[in-house]
């Protein structure tokens, strides 16, 4: 970076004496000088700054480099990123009120969210542990149900689970794995603890955006990227392919892997097409497939029927096979479950894997890990009250104003209540609902989820984020380096969904030692090095003569 860099670096200097930031009223004019001095990150854990003007240990260099770039330059990079996204056609689909659908450009913020590698390795191990236990749990539920017999997991929860599929009882999927692709949502609370908020074991999405975010960042922040060398995420498609190929019923041959999409009107269609393309797999719809009399699955091709070995299905269980589940589904393939049970085609994730995706089951994950692996969870659950337990229920009803109460089987924030934000009337209405069906509810304290600096016009302001890493499981396990960081772009908002004003960021797992210096420092150091070198060289020459 040119002269501006060094100037900015000088301006940062030593952290100011704990002066409280003046929030964002100061506007653009002051931002290039001492950006971080006025960064209002108190009250929450900020991933980059521990206090105004004071970067976290290990993040000093990144903070300095961002400051050196300056507000105007960062805003220009942000515009470049947005133009790139449009040009590359990175979109997501939203449904409009008129019933149509709109393809929107993917919202993205260029300031990366950084996590030191050492911390990440622990998270990675925790995620592997968790998914391994969940897979054992699912397999147990569809076989002997030992965990229920041993009274670790209540029968009543199982019998009321809407995602338990009786059709899957006794089935042995390849390698005994049910949830091959898992997306777990992580959040960090005020004190810095990382929690698992939920596990998505059905058809988790978002990974294509993780990959595209990385491409965009490489284009618009190349110098920082090069300097910090975050661990790569680009191998996900090939790891996904290997995971899927490992499930093939015909391992000796080159397996035919396909991605099954509900079609172009699905919100995640972009991702389905993207992953198919990246893996070199066919992108198929239900009507492209059929199950023959031999209980094998075929796709209709120009050359006639072609056998399919592995289906990465992005269709919900209930729409998968009208013969076995919802008879009026036109998205699925009649007989598919039959072919899967016969072991002639692999389905990822396996039907019925969603049983472990229930928010009440979530509350039992620490026990599940203990039961199957005899280990303590590496990443904790958010403390969770199970309303099915009378003591917990009493507590929840009394403290509903402080808690978030969620139903077991809804996603996307439906049917839940955020106590502090609700009115008295809403709370009492919700209390009635919980009393009626306590098994269906869990409650958690409201978390103060962490923030990351985000570009707002020409300034940086803290915005709340979560993180969705993806865990692949087959013959071996792998976890994405980081994952998809989603950010609530509205000030104060905790809603990170892209359909509701959420955006995303690139996630950098920074190797230890990388970027220990800011780039500006590194450059000036390199310069002085070469100067002193040439000096000593000329000296030695003088001596020789």
């Amino acid at each position, binding site marked *: 970076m040119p002269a501006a860099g060094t100037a900015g670096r000088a301006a940062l200097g030593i952290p100011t004496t704990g002066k409280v930031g003046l929030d964002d009223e100061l506007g653009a004019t002051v931002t290039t000088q001492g950006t971080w001095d006025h960064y209002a990150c108190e009250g929450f854990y900020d991933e980059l700054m521990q206090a105004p003007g004071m970067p976290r240990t290990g993040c000093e260099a990144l903070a300095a480099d961002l400051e050196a770039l300056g507000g105007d330059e960062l805003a220009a990079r942000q515009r470049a990123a947005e133009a790139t996204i449009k040009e590359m056609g990175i979109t997501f689909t939203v449904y409009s009120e008129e019933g149509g659908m709109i393809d929107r450009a993917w919202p993205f913020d260029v300031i990366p969210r950084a996590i030191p590698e050492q911390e990440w390795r622990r998270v990675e191990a925790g995620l592997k542990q968790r998914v391994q236990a969940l897979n054992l749990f699912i397999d147990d539920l569809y076989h002997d149900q030992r965990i229920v017999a041993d009274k670790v997991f209540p029968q009543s929860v199982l019998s009321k689970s809407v995602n338990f599929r009786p059709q899957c009882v006794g089935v042995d999927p390849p390698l005994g794995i049910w949830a091959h692709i898992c997306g777990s949502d992580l959040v960090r609370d005020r004190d810095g603890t990382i929690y698992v908020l939920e596990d998505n074991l059905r058809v988790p999405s978002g990974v294509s955006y993780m990959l595209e975010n990385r491409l965009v960042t490489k284009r618009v922040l190349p110098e920082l990227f090069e300097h910090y060398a975050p661990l790569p995420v680009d191998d996900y498609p090939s790891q996904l392919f290997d995971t899927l190929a490992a499930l093939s019923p015909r391992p000796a041959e080159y397996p035919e892997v396909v991605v099954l999409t509900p079609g172009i009107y699905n919100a995640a269609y972009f991702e389905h097409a993207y992953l198919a393309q990246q893996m070199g797999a066919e*992108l198929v719809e239900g*009507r492209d497939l059929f199950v023959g009399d031999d209980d094998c699955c075929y796709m209709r091709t*120009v050359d*006639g029927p072609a056998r399919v070995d592995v289906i990465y299905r992005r269709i919900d269980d209930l729409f998968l096979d009208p013969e076995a589940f919802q008879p009026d589904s036109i998205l699925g393939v009649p007989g598919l479950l039959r072919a899967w049970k016969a072991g002639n085609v692999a389905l990822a994730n396996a039907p019925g894997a969603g049983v472990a995706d229930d928010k009440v089951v979530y509350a039992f994950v620490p026990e599940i890990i203990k039961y199957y692996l005899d280990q303590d969870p590496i990443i904790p659950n958010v403390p969770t009250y199970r309303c099915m337990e009378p003591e917990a229920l009493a507590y929840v009803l009394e403290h509903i104003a402080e808690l978030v109460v969620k139903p077991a089987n809804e996603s996307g924030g439906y049917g839940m209540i955020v106590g502090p934000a609700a009115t008295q009337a809403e709370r009492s209405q919700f209390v009635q609902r919980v009393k009626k069906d306590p098994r269906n509810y869990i409650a958690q304290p409201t978390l103060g989820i962490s923030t990351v600096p985000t570009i707002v016009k020409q300034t940086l302001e803290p915005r709340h984020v979560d993180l969705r890493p993806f865990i692949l499981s087959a013959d071996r396990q792998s976890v994405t380096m980081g994952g998809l960081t989603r950010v609530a772009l509205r000030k104060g908002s905790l809603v990170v969904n892209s359909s509701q004003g959420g955006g995303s960021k690139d996630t950098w797992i920074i190797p230890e030692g990388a970027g220990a210096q800011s780039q500006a420092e590194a450059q000036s150091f390199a310069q002085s090095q070469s100067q002193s070198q040439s000096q000593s060289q000329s000296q030695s020459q003088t001596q020789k003569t």
Partner: protein
Amino acid sequence: MLSRVAENLYWLARYVERAEDTARIVTVNANLLLDLPKGVAPGWRPLVDITGANALFEEYYKDYGERQVVRFLLGDERHAGSIVTVLAAARENCRTIRDSVPREFWEQINGLHLFAAGELQKGLAKTGRHAYLRELVLRCQTLAGLLDGTMLHDQGFEFLRLGRYLERADMTTRIADVQSANLLPQTDEGRPYDNIQWVSVLKSMTAYQMYRRSEQIRVQRGPVLRFIFKNPQFPRSVRWCIEHARSGLERLPRNDTSLREVGRIARLLDGADLPALSQAQLHQFVDDVQLGIAALHDEIAATWFPPPSVVEP
């Protein structure tokens, strides 16, 4: 290659060809009408006749005026065959198979659709129409060139070509049928406009110059019909389209029934003595050729495309 993808590619090509052909006939008709005396000129109705969508047209418009017909053909969203609608359909088709075509192709289709819809008002105004249509034709041609030059010449490529040639052959027969029926009455003395109208038939297919080079006789009914139906070198003649459909089909598996249909159409064309046909006989002949093209389409669909979706009870 997936059957659904093959079908999408085929229709994608048909839609683009239809847009291009429609743009051509509108341009030529506008030029022709400037040369014909008011009162005897056939006006704009023949263009709707060519598309065969008269019933739909009459549902929405009182008369076949220039403004109405041009709007109907260029930008009426209620008309599934209007340029704006077919290009939207082409884009939608392409979106579902983005992974099978070169990236530039998708960008071109996307741009073409945006242009056709975004600049429509200019196209509807008399002064802007020529430029609008010219741009449309050029962009369609660009697409064809892109595919030829950048796409794998694989099965998908053959389905694109099949779609294009069937649509083009069909359009050529329609133009010939309608325009020859609408020629000014034969009894007209001197018939100074006869020549102009056959010239415009040729121009509807950008065939005028090529006709001149190839036939070297004055423009009149018999040779023109022979040229647009049977010339083996002119890429918009029915014979040429069918011959190239054949060479594409030969590269596809399980092609025997489709090739038989192609043979039938080729024999029909080869056996016809077009200059000798009366107007009624010509109409019958065109009908037969069109039925043949429809039968060929059905064979292609039955052999390679997915079965029609089962209608839910």
